[in-house]
């Protein structure tokens, strides 16, 4: 754990001990990412421990999605290191990250409109018999996946294009949550969900957390953070500006930190 002291962000050190002396599941150090003229990430350090939920908040374009996409292998950082369970890794792509049990619900969902519900649930993980798709098995398992999350979709053979925004979001969540992830990243998973469905997602987060999964939750619904998160990191213009244990903060404090009037420790 000694290496944790190299964190540049002063706010992180006391928090780490609060979580316990475990090796972080994910540790990012000095992550930078540029898109042309946009400095999307300007050196971000972040730690994520087993069994915790980290809330990631910040203004639009603060770099939250970019940072989590780096963890899920979707983007390769320009600089900085990624450690998984204490070991420095170079994620080569999404397949690599998925192989390491890192799953992500993307803000834009990443569903294939022309493929049916069950096909999207198993996208990239098709159950097969030889070269053939095992449809019967996928239908049965897919139904279980949705039932486990209390997602109601009458027909699994409906093409995703015909579903409502919330149903689509539910499918993306089920896809990420159902294959025993160790790290579950959710980028605004509840933006289109109705009351009951939001509750179900928050329950899901608490449940997977209890089973040892690390969760990163990005959301603009700040009140949700207080129901599931253990820690909150605030991003501003491509940097992490603050980190708070959930018991040391409140809505007002967070709002100030997000808009940039907070006291940066």
């Amino acid at each position, binding site marked *: 754990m000694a290496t944790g002291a190299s964190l540049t962000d002063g706010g992180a050190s006391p928090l780490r001990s609060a979580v316990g002396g475990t090796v972080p599941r994910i540790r990012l150090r000095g992550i930078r990412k540029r898109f042309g003229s946009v400095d999307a990430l300007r050196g971000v350090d972040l730690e994520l421990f087993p069994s915790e939920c980290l809330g990631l908040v910040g203004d639009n374009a603060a770099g939250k999605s970019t940072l989590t996409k780096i963890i899920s292998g979707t983007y390769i950082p320009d600089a900085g290191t990624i450690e998984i369970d204490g070991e420095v890794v170079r994620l080569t792509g999404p397949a690599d990250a998925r192989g390491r049990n890192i799953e992500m619900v993307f803000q834009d969902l*990443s569903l294939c409109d022309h493929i049916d519900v069950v096909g999207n649930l198993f*996208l*990239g993980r098709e159950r*097969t018999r030889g070269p053939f798709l095992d449809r019967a098995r996928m239908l049965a398992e897919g139904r279980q996946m949705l039932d486990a999350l209390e997602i109601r979709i009458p027909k699994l053979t409906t093409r995703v294009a015909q579903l409502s925004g919330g149903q689509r979001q539910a499918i993306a969540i089920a896809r990420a949550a159902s294959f025993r992830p160790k790290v579950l990243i959710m980028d605004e998973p509840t933006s289109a969900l109705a009351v009951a469905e939001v509750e179900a997602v928050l329950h899901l987060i608490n449940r997977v957390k209890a089973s040892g999964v690390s969760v990163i939750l990005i959301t603009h619904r700040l009140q949700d953070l207080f129901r599931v998160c253990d820690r909150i990191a605030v991003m501003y213009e491509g940097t992490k500006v603050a980190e708070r244990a959930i018991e040391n903060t409140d809505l007002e404090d967070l709002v100030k930190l997000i808009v940039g009037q907070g006291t940066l420790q």
Partner: protein
Amino acid sequence: MTEYAERRQGPDIADFLIDNAQVLSIAVFFVACTIFFSASADYFLTVGNILNILRQAAPLLIVATAMTFVIVTAGIDLSVGSLIALINAVAAIALAAGLPWPLVVLAMFALGGLIGLAQGWFIAYQDVPAFIVTLAGLSILRGVALYLTKGYSIPISGVPGFLAIGRATVYGIPLPAIIAAAVALVGYVAIGRTKYGRQVVAVGSNAEAARRVGMPARWIVASVYIVSGVCAALAGIMLAARLGSGSSNAAVGFELQAIAAVVLGGTSLMGGRGTILGTILGTLTIAVIGNGLILMHISPFFTQIVTGAIILAAIWINTRIFSTRFRLKQRKEG
């Protein structure tokens, strides 16, 4: 107080009709063409002529089946006609040099696959638009074929085994038709029931989503051009065998016929949605129109005009029907 009741599930047939409307409409159009020509040309609905249509349609069906895969990835392969010409020329030269015909056939498959791989590499790994890459292919491959043959047609004779590929019949049915039906069947099963087909559809529907779930998106895109190249090679062999010669002027405009067959069948040029059943019907429709007009003694020059106009009309009607349905649906939601 209002009761909270679940929305009733409509009949499955409604979904089926919506999903398959385009295939159904091309099927209706095909039947209409058949009835029209049966009434207009005496010889049209005879066993001899039907077998003739099937033999004629075979190479187009093979190429159109592969083209369906290409178009499902939102790509296009304009080089297939030129590739057929090149295969024609090279196969004829190799056979004239005395190489054993089975070896020549295998070598042609390999050549078609390699050319497809080369084009696929530019498209998938170098991000050059498929339209440009295969347009260059169209020019280059035809040029190579012309260069090799100096523009002459090279006769193929004394290799009955090779010629049989284009001319033999099995229980009265032309061998090319049987081969083409087998290719279409493989295509049908592959696109709907196999993991590979699912990957092709996923890449065409949302390439970034496919990449994010860990599919080898670039390789999948490249692979459809290999499939297209191998199928064009098969069609080229078939044509050379049927005509008994290898000509660098073979299959001019073939790529457009293949694309027309695929689009007529209801496959979307935007990618993601494709149907081999539709492609089969589209191919047969084009073959029937071509054959019927000849039997009606309409000038072959006119045939091209009519074929083009019919294709435009059919696709126009199809698009109209679909956009109407779409608008109605949106209004209901609003």
